[in-house]
Structure formats: structure tokens, C-alpha cells
């Protein structure tokens, strides 16, 4: 079996799960007070694109995007009404669980990081899953279950039954892990020349699933509550959750249409060729100004990086990853200074009941200006 194909299938399964999260919001939308059909349609279509995206004709997906746009433009996608969890319940759980509650959150970050750093390289073109990776954790689980079972005898009847049940569950988990590991270790994967890296989607997906399972083990929640909360989270982010992906799509149209070439053509008349310092300053300033005008660094990034960043910084020898990373955060300096980024600067002022609606921007202004200078310096020092 080709390892890359297998890992890509893994990624597709993760995207299917993302689709299910979207379907969950769609189903919850049917219980909305208003815009039931629109909300249901929006999240259903999004879920379908997630799951069937690679198999549908791209033009059809494009047309579905237009449908999504019509639904949001007509304000047919709405947040449902949710009963918030009780503050007293959350407080009691926080006291009971202590710092254990951070475990799932940390798992997402750390496991995703570790997995995405894995690279299967071809010292031999055929590799198998190392048996010990799964057998050691499986052995730990089974030994833990055994200790729990033995320890249960000292407890009173009710606590003992609970401990025995938990021991049984741990043992089952251990056995399943061992069997899965054994099956995996019997498969032989072929690795293409140059090695195969672990796909990001699969890394983040597996980390999230593991975090969820740990969370379930710690808290023993009602599944209906989790479904409801998940729908609430997605509906709170709302249609804006599409924005990064759509801006990516817009960037592709811009590239195809040659928009970047036009901008760099204009800039070429303004910026003298061959000056790295000027190129960096113009790129950083372009990101800041465009973000201030658009109120969104993501939107500015695709346009300004293709139009200015590539021809005036990267083509002069700048490291693409460093230039890109600093270009984006340079845009964030613009976000700090603009009322256009209302959700970060104007809404919070209202939330904190300030006298002046620009209080937040005023507090951020000195930092933004200093950080712009820092970005120019860092880009010159690190990228060249």
C-alpha cells in the first residue's frame, strides 16, 4: 500500500467528520425560531462540500458557493436560541476537576504539533508501523486496569463497583489498542522517494479526536449537551467561518486574472528595483495600509503578497516562509489601528463601556507603530 494514499484517505475521513459537525449545526438550525430553511440549507451545503468536495465537478461546487452567498446576503442564516450552561454547574465542575480540564486543550496543541512534525523518509522504500508504539500504551492501560481492579477490593460496595467498571473499560481500551496496533504492524507501506510527511488535516483531526475522548473520559458528559454546544460554537462563528477559504478562492481568481501582475506593474513604477530595504518597507507598509482599509489582514494578504511581497521581497532572495509569516503579522499591526476591524476595536469598546469608542484603538496605536518598525527590521534580518 502506498503510504501517501493511505494518509490522504485519512485526511478525507477527517474532512468527512468536519462535514458531520456542519450537518449537526444544520440539524440544530431546524429548531431555530427564524430562518429555519435558510440556516439548514447553508450548513448542509457546507457539510456536503466538505465531504464530497473532491468528487463533485468543481463548477458545481462553485455554483453551491454562490448559493451560500445568496443565503447570507439575504440574511437567511441565523443563530439559534440556546440555553447556556449554568454558571453554578461550571463553577462546581471547575472545582471538582481542577487543572485536569486543561488536558484536552493541551492535547489538541501538542499532539497536532508532534504528529505534523513526523516525516516518513525512505531509508528503505517499505515501512511498517512499529509495534511497540501501540503495545507500550496498551500495556500501560491494561496494567492500570489490573491495579484498579485489585485496589477496588478495599473500597465500599458502591465505589468498588464503579472502580471495577472503570477497570473493565480501561482493559477493553487496552486490548483494542493492542489489536489495532498489531493489524497496522502487519501492513506494509511503500514510501515514495523524498519521503512522506504527515498531512496537517490528519494531524489536527487525530489530535482533536484524542482530545475529545480524553474530555469524555474526564467529564462523562451527556452527548446531547456536547452536540448542542458544538452547534452553538459553529453558529456563533457563523458564515464568517467560510471567509478564509473564500478569500483563498478569491486569491486564485486574482492569480488567474493576473491582478498581482497589474499591482506589481504599478509598484514597479514607484519602487526602484534592486533595493531590498525599500522592497521590505513597501511590502510591510502595503500590508498595514491595505489591512486598515479592508479591516481584514487575510483579505489584504492574498492581494499584497502576490502583488508586492513576491516580486519585491521574495524574488530578491527573501525566505518565502519568513516573509509570508511576517507579512501576515504586519497586517495585524494595521488591524490594531483601524475602526474597520470593528469586532476587535469598536465592539470591545462598547462591551467594556468606554466613554470614547476609540479608546481601544488609542491604547493600541503606540504598540502598532513600534511593531511596524519591528517587522521591517525582523524581515530584513531574518529573511535575508
Amino acid at each position: 500500500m502506498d503510504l501517501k494514499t493511505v494518509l490522504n484517505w485519512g485526511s478525507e475521513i477527517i474532512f468527512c467528520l468536519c462535514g458531520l459537525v456542519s450537518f449537526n449545526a444544520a440539524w440544530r438550525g431546524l429548531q431555530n425560531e427564524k430562518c429555519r430553511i435558510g440556516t439548514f440549507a447553508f450548513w448542509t451545503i457546507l457539510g456536503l462540500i466538505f465531504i464530497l468536495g473532491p468528487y463533485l465537478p468543481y463548477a458545481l461546487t462553485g455554483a453551491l458557493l454562490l448559493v451560500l452567498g445568496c443565503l447570507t446576503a439575504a440574511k437567511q442564516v441565523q443563530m439559534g436560541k440556546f440555553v447556556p450552561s449554568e454558571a453554578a454547574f461550571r463553577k462546581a465542575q471547575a472545582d471538582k476537576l481542577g487543572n485536569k480540564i486543561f488536558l484536552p486543550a493541551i492535547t489538541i496543541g501538542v499532539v497536532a504539533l508532534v504528529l505534523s512534525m513526523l516525516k516518513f523518509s525512505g531509508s528503505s522504500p517499505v515501512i511498517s508501523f512499529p509495534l511497540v508504539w501501540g503495545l507500550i500504551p496498551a500495556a500501560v492501560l491494561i496494567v492500570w486496569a489490573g491495579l484498579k481492579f485489585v485496589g477496588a477490593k478495599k473500597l465500599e460496595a458502591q465505589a468498588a463497583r464503579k472502580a471495577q467498571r472503570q477497570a473493565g473499560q480501561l482493559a477493553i481500551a487496552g486490548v483494542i489498542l493492542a489489536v489495532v496496533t498489531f493489524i497496522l504492524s502487519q501492513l506494509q507501506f511503500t514510501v515514495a522517494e523524498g519521503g512522506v510527511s504527515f498531512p496537517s488535516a490528519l494531524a489536527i483531526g487525530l489530535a482533536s479526536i484524542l482530545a475529545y475522548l480524553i474530555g469524555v473520559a474526564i467529564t462523562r458528559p451527556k452527548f446531547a449537551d456536547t452536540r448542542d454546544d458544538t452547534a452553538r460554537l459553529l453558529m456563533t462563528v457563523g458564515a464568517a467561518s467560510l471567509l478564509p477559504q473564500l478569500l483563498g478562492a478569491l486569491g486564485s481568481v486574482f492569480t488567474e486574472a493576473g491582478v498581482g501582475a497589474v499591482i506589481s506593474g504599478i509598484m514597479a513604477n514607484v519602487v526602484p528595483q534592486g533595493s531590498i530595504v525599500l522592497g521590505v518597507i513597501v511590502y510591510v507598509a502595503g500590508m498595514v495600509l491595505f489591512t486598515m482599509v479592508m479591516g481584514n489582514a487575510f483579505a489584504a494578504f492574498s492581494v499584497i503578497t502576490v502583488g508586492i511581497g513576491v516580486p519585491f521581497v521574495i524574488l530578491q532572495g527573501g525566505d518565502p516562509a519568513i516573509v509570508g509569516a511576517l507579512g501576515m503579522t504586519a497586517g495585524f499591526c494595521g488591524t490594531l489601528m483601524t475602526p474597520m476591524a470593528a469586532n476587535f476595536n469598536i465592539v470591545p469598546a462598547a462591551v467594556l463601556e468606554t466613554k470614547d469608542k476609540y479608546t481601544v484603538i488609542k491604547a493600541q496605536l503606540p504598540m502598532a507603530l513600534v511593531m511596524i518598525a519591528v517587522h521591517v527590521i525582523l524581515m530584513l534580518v531574518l529573511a535575508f
Partner: protein
Amino acid sequence: MEYLKLIGILIIVVGFALKWDVIAVVLISGLVTGLVSGLNFIQILEIMGKSFVDNRLMSIFLISFPAIALIERYGMKERAAELIGKIKNATAGKVLSIYMVVRILASVMSIRLGGHVQFVRPLILPMSEAAGQTAIKKPLNEKQRERIKGLAAAVENYGNFFGQNIFLGNSGVLLIQGTLAAAGYEVTLGSIAQASIPVGIVVTLFTIIQVLLADRKLKKEVQA
């Protein structure tokens, strides 16, 4: 008319400025740019559809929602609040410094700690104001409260903006990778996340300086 191709940018700028529906504005911008550049309608749909599917990774955060929903219901924010509450000899500047460090680390690990509504207003602002009052041993006047409000909101933004790209699954990192790939440069998510670390460190240091300077200003006003 090469410059006509820039009309898409104009549509974005005007549309965002006038607070039109962002999804519709982006789609219209793409359609119009494609049409004036000589692409036909079906071609534009194909380009957008393909790119949207290729970029599904940018919305991978959906998969983390069940886990996050779970820990929020079981008191994760409340526990974090308690940890911050344990600080001794607090001043507004110290509370905000610690929040900055916690916030940027949370953002690095992609933990949705809060935001202005869920965390700053109910927790960080009251704690900063209380700490400020204790430190100068008298009630804050309106100007001083306004200043602390501005800083509390600002720290939330600093931590959020400049920490998020250090997490390699962040949609910003994915957008950077996607944009560079479209321009012909293949870079790893890890290298982008790594390149975002220096800015995160610098902004944390400057934030601590900014809030401690505010502490000093507060003290001077009392002595004067």
C-alpha cells in the same frame, strides 16, 4: 484596460467599508474580476470551486469544536480565572502582564480562552481595576478607568493576533501556505509557525513594558 482588473479590490474595499455581507462581497469580487479579465462564468466557478475544496484545510478547526464545547461546559474558563486570581501583590500592570503571557500561550496552543465578551469584561477588567485601586489605595477616577479599559482590550488583541500564527494549524498559517503555494513557493506549515515566534516574543515584552509604564503613570498621578 489592465487596470480594470483591479475592480475586484475596489469591490472588496467598498463592500467591507459599507458593511455589506462579507461572503457575498468576496464572491461578487471574484466573479467581476474574472469576467473583466476574459474568463467565462463556468471557468470562474471552476476556479473558485477547486480552490475552495483544495483549501478545506483552512476550516479544519471545525473538528476541534466538540472537544472545546466539552471543556467549556465543564468549567475550563472558570478554572483559568481561579489561577489568575492567585497572584500576590497585584497591580493593574501585573494582572495584565500575566494575562498577556497566558493569552499568547493559549493562542499558541489554539485554546479559545475567551475574548472581550467572555473573558476581559467579566474577569480581566474587574481584576485589573481592583488591583489598580488596591495599589494606589484609593478609587480610580474616570480617566484612569478609561485607560485600564483600553489596555485590557488591547492586551486581548495583542495576545490573540501575534500568538495565533505560532500554532501551525491556524487558519492564518494555512492561508500563508496556500497563497505562497499558488505563487509557486512550497513551504511547510512548521516553518511559517516558527517564523512567527520572534514577533510573539517581542510583542509580549513590549506589552509588559506598556502596562508597567501605565502602572507608573498611575502611581505618579497619586503622588502629584
